[in-house]
């Protein structure tokens, strides 16, 4: 029997963790002689106070949604995919190839094609560590981390030597043709009479990310395969006894995970930069781990956590723009949130559980 009611598990634990992180952050800001109230105010207005702020918050959130879902799916199969970074990088390569070398007639088709390419490239990059884990028992944590570096090296080589337009000294591809440019939230919401900021990068990919959330939920909790993935993750011997093949489930879970991470590229590469740059993923693959941990590997939790991290990123950018709080400290604030929600989960959970047990005993 669960010790805590579900609402406490899902809402109370993360909330208390967040409050603790916020208190500590405030102390840190005070310690360097800045005003924490003003800092919070600036972060909230900067990230959520205008459609411009929301545009950036949702743009970052879209990245984290994909990588967060990627980690979640693998996590349900008991696999720790730390390779979201590399898979998203390779996904970007897939998007760039699809956008640059196929003459698309319309952006919808381009989006579809680029999504398929991104997912395929991401899945392919996850397939090798998955195979090594399934067949050889090489630990997936180690191999996926290593593949991040190999991915970075591949991208570096391809951009500098093969895909860089002649004459440009920037290690990046040419701009994608006009027809592949995705509509931003400004373009989508304008016909509905909502004027959304024109300069914010959030685009139609956010809708796809939401769709991915629903699909992942459906896959994990409403399909045969999802049931197999979850039971394998809960108990490998149990799953084996039930006739579930570890090799097949490891491969399938990692392929889906890699594909989701790869899909992130349609947001940052196709939607925002409209070209592939060397540093396109910039850590979103790792943030995805924190997002999945905080969201308890449930798509809805991942959605909330992704928006929170989007808020932290955009709010942090505003802090960097308008205050003299150094950017290292902004990283500290982000890290405190990760620390409390991810790593120090039990610190909040255990006292809470005790509290609920006490309450229940009194009732009984």
């Amino acid at each position, binding site marked *: 029997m669960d010790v805590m009611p579900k609402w406490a598990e899902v809402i109370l634990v993360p909330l208390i963790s967040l409050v603790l992180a916020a208190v500590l952050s405030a102390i840190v800001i005070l310690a360097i002689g800045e005003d924490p109230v003003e800092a919070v105010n600036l972060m909230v207005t900067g990230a959520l106070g205008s459609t411009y*702020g929301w545009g950036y918050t949702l743009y970052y959130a879209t990245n984290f949604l994909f990588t967060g879902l990627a980690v979640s799916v693998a996590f349900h199969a008991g696999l720790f995919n730390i390779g979201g970074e590399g898979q998203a990088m390779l996904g970007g390569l897939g998007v760039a190839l699809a956008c640059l070398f196929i003459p698309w007639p319309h952006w919808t088709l381009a989006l579809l094609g680029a999504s398929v390419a991104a997912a395929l490239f991401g899945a392919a990059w996850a397939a090798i560590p998955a195979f090594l884990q399934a067949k050889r028992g090489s630990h997936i944590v180690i191999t996926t981390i290593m593949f991040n570096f190999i991915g970075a090296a591949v991208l570096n080589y391809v951009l500098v030597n093969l895909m860089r337009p002649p004459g440009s000294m920037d290690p990046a591809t040419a701009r994608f043709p006009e027809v592949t440019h995705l509509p931003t939230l400004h373009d989508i919401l304008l016909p509905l009479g909502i004027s959304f900021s024109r300069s914010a*990068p959030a685009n139609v990919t956010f809708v796809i990310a939401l769709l991915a959330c629903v699909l992942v939920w459906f896959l994990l909790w409403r399909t045969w395969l999802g049931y197999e993935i979850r039971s394998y993750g809960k108990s490998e011997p149990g799953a084996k006894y039930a006739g579930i093949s570890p090799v097949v489930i490891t491969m399938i879970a990692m392929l889906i995970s890699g594909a989701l991470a790869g899909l992130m590229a349609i947001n940052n590469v196709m939607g925002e930069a409209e*070209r592939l*740059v060397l540093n396109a993923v910039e850590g979103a693959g790792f943030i995805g781990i924190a997002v999945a941990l905080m969201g308890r590997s449930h798509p809805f939790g991942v959605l909330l956590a992704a928006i929170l991290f989007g808020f932290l990123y955009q709010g942090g950018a505003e802090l960097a723009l308008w205050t003299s709080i150094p950017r290292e400290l902004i990283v500290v604030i982000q890290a405190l949130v990760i620390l409390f929600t991810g790593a120090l989960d039990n610190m909040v959970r255990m006292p809470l559980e005790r509290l609920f047990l006490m309450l229940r005993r009194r009732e009984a």
Partner: protein
Amino acid sequence: MTFMHKLLGGAAALALSAGAALAEPAVIFDLGGKFDKSFNEAAHNGAQRWAEETGQTYREIELQSEAQREQALRRFAEAGANPIITMGFAMADPLSTVAPDYPDTKFVAIDVTWLDAPNVRQIGFAEHEGSYLVGMMAGMASESGTVGFIGGMDIPLIRHFACGYAQGVKAVDPEATVVANMTGTTPAAWNDPVKGSELTKAQISQGADVIYAAAGGTGVGVLQTAADEDILSIGVDSNQNHLHPGKVLTSMLKRVDVAVYDALKAGTDLETGVFTFGLAEEGVGYALDDNNAPLVSDEMKAAVDAAREKIIAGDLEVASYYATDSCPALDF
């Protein structure tokens, strides 16, 4: 509209109007941060010098993500900052879309020379010429006939440095071997002194006795290990001779600080267009001070100064990696 919305909207409007009142210049540092001991720090030093001399202030941001490039440009431009100084080639693409939207704002792009934008002052440095000179010195100082080069990432800019260096080495000693390594494939490569140190040791074991570091903060580890192992090193961007007196042969100077200082001093009267600062403009050069004077022989100095004169006069042309995407003296 709920109360909360009104509150937030009001606060946002307040923040924006507060921004618009200040017509300060702004500096956008690249991802390495303003204390990278190299490129961005040079800009920071130039800006600080201007601030101290004039008593004026400037806005700044150290970028943390790619999406912030355009964001920072637009936010500063909307807040009325003028001129806006940007660091690094990666700002070229965002500038090409943002600059036309703010025709009254002047932008400065350092390490960018290929944009078509009337309100951008584009500043390139002839790094290959400066690297050629320090390459000559490396070739003359080397006793083993093998010299090293340690770059940050394998990107065109660093190949440009390496190519000039290798040509300089080969100019004084055609038989010399140039060992070139790159530190990494992720942006962390610009600030990884430990790996810089390991690469230095690896190059020493291959016989290198002079090593040129063009790798941002990673170079600190290269210079340190070279000093510990009792070989010579060459610093980059700023004058790094003082880090290990008597152990750093020279530094390839790239006067980003001067470029930033001049831009801030000119303020809104800034002249736009494409500028390349080479040896003639003293935009690049080699450092000679008390710390390395004992290492630089008269013969060495005479040869390098002669080459410098020839390059300025146009009698000697250092091949640029940028021009041909290839290097006559070094394979990548």
